[in-house]
């Protein structure tokens, strides 16, 4: 047995879970009696604890109310329920979109929400308040309810995090923070990298730890991951959201700083470069100063979803930062104490790096995965030295050109360590499947990014 996982399928207190409303996922730590604000609604999660993951709730008067199967209508159910009882027109000839057909004002609807009315109740009032509803065709009625359902329904479910959902959450929230790494590309990195229990993988990523977490999940507590990182410590905020990973599964993770690779490659022990970190600007914070790459004239960073900022406190980065700010023990009395603490931490870190260096130094790792915002070629050409022969290497980039450079470099390199180099992108298309109305989704995500992959071979010649 690799691990004692598959633990609980019931919602537990103090665990990070994913709240799911409409198409949005949101990681959150559930604490009894602590209010959660999400998508303009707020509630305490107490009623959910102990119920199975996947349970659906309505929010009413600040509490979660379990939606029972008999009442579980979901979107489709609500639509048919609200459209079946009224007449409908054959076509849309009577519809004028003047915004006057709704008798309820925004303020009135807002008040209903404030009063804690359930989404279902509000939706019913909104449909009744629409004077033109019965003049619409059945199809347009459905569309109308669907739109309103999206706006007023408060049905949310609580889901156990998995790589699939976590990746979707990060991609929806701010793709630029994870190098635009889409789910299909992430899945290919793991497959083409032959990541599985007992493999020893080198990872270099600037995707908030998303790739590292996904690799840890696929190792199941057996094998080794060496995360090579930029700056003074690896960014792994996403690992907090991988709440389903056990201690054992996390324990296979080692780390090694990029700026010390030179030492390993030249075999000069001890000679260490101290990076000059600009004061006040932590290097790992790629959202603030995008050091890896930037696009002139166009800001490749995207707007954060401010709506959710307050819950951000409850899990992930913010929480960790808070913990770090508050020293665990009693407050240091004198600066010497602080220095000692610093020194102790430094020694601990050295030990950690030594462990990682020993693993890398065997130069027989089972795979290399790169997904970062830096120019990948020198990173690839350095890290490839630690990979054994006949092993997969996968490099992801949001851009094609840097990967072409990698390709060129590999082809031109004397030792010829790469076999069957491939460069590709993927095309991911979603479909609407409805009786008589099946077609590809009208808009599709056209940016998969690019993947370069090959198998290492022994130095030939």
């Amino acid at each position, binding site marked *: 047995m*690799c*691990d004692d996982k*598959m633990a609980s399928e019931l919602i537990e207190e103090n665990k990070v879970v994913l709240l799911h409303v409409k198409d949005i996922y949101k990681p959150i730590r559930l604490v009894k009696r602590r209010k959660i604000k999400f998508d303009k609604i707020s509630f305490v999660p107490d*009623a959910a604890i*102990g*119920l*199975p*993951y*996947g349970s*659906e709730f309505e929010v009413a008067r600040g509490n979660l*109310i*379990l939606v*029972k*199967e*008999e009442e579980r209508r979901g979107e489709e159910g609500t639509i048919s329920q609200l459209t079946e009882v009224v007449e409908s027109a054959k076509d849309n000839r009577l519809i004028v979109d003047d915004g006057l057909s709704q008798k309820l004002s925004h303020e009135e609807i807002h008040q209903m929400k404030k009063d804690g009315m359930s989404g279902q109740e509000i939706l019913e009032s909104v449909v009744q308040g629409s004077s033109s509803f019965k003049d619409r065709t059945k199809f347009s009625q459905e569309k109308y309810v669907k739109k309103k359902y999206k706006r007023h329904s408060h049905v949310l479910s609580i889901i156990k995090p*998995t*790589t*699939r959902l976590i990746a979707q959450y990060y991609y929806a929230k701010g793709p630029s923070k994870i190098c635009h790494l889409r789910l*299909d590309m992430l*899945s*290919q990195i*793991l*497959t*083409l990298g*032959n990541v*599985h*229990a*007992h493999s020893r993988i080198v990872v270099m990523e600037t995707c908030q730890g998303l790739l590292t977490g996904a690799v840890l999940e*696929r190792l*199941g*507590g*057996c094998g080794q991951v060496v995360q090579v990182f930029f700056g003074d410590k690896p960014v792994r905020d996403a690992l907090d959201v991988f709440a389903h990973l056990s201690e054992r599964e996390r324990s296979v993770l080692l780390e090694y700083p990029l700026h010390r690779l030179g030492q390993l490659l030249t075999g000069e022990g001890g000679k260490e470069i101290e990076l000059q970190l600009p004061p006040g600007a932590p290097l790992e914070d790629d959202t603030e100063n995008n050091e890896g790459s930037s696009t002139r004239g166009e800001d490749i960073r995207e707007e954060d979803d401010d709506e959710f900022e307050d819950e951000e406190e409850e899990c992930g980065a913010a929480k960790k930062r808070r913990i770090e700010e508050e020293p665990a023990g009693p407050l240091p009395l004198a600066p010497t104490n602080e220095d000692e603490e610093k020194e102790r931490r430094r020694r601990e870190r050295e030990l950690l790096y030594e462990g990682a260096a020993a693993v890398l130094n065997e130069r027989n790792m*089972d795979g290399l995965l790169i997904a970062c915002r830096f120019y990948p070629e020198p990173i690839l050409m350095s890290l490839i030295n630690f990979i*054994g*022969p*006949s*092993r997969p290497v996968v490099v992801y980039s949001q851009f*094609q050109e840097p990967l*072409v450079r990698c*390709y*060129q470099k590999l082809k031109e390199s004397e030792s010829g360590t790469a*076999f*069957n*180099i491939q*460069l*590709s*992108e*993927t*095309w*991911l*298309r*979603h479909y609407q*499947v409805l*009786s008589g109305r*099946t077609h590809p989704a009208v808009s599709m995500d056209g940016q998969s990014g690019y993947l370069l992959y090959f*198998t*290492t*071979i*022994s130095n*030939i010649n």
Partner: protein
Amino acid sequence: MSFLKYKAAIEEGDTVIICRGRERLIPVIVKRGGVTQVLGGAILHDKLIGVEFGSKVYTSNNKGWVIVLHPTPELWTLSLPHRTQILYSTDISMITMQLELRPGSTVCECGTGSGSLSHAIARTIAPDGHLFTFEFHEKRSQIAKDEFEAHGLSHIVTVKCSDVCQEGFGLEDRVDAVFLDLPNPWEAISSAKTAIKRTGGRICSFSPCIEQVQKTCEELNKLGFKDIGVMECLLRPFDVRPCVFNIPNMGSNVDHSTDKSKSTKLTQPIASSETIWTCAQRRTIPGHTGFLTFATLLHKDIVSGPSTVDQI
């Protein structure tokens, strides 16, 4: 030999993948005295034994060569003998991710076909997960079974020869995920639901035709599956190579080449040239493999009403 753990050198009885450049990959079972013919000549198996994976090995006449690679499910997918249509790594990646497979998962699959997907699943759920794979074609089922044995996967895979649409999976509350790749997947969904663990799970159906998808979605919906999503994932490969572009003579004083040493006399029609590594699309690529339909079965206590609901 095991697909699950890399080893350094080739031993007798191992399955190795041999290849040259972009030519087809060939799986070879190494036997003493064995010979494999490749384009450049004959590869003597005796020469392979003891060689490190990832090395170059020359043909008996020393004219040709091949690289010998350690097998992985991905290389196997590219080299396996086709008994049916098979799934390739792009779809396999999406399936693995969407079914949330990881070490320890239990999965059921129908049909086994040529075992392309089965190998990838077994790799991901090892060392303590289990794959139940069903195939009603007796010969295919047997060959797949032999292959799993030879590839060190038989402790993870159970091969069953039966008609899943008629007899079902015969499993109850056992698996985390179900995968269907058969002509009429909707007939297997009810049995899939029974097979899925009480705590819920994921299902995927792969179908080339949209009519199959339509029927499958209807059935999934009817049986209470949630989050039904249909998608298509296609690989678009590029050809990367250095390309020489000529720069025409545009009259005196106009020299656009960056490499001045290459520019010639300004009376010639072609003034100079520029070499750039280019990335070309291919004229013909697979334009459709199949539609992937995914859905979630929630905890069975939620789906069929039940015990814990009274707690509130």
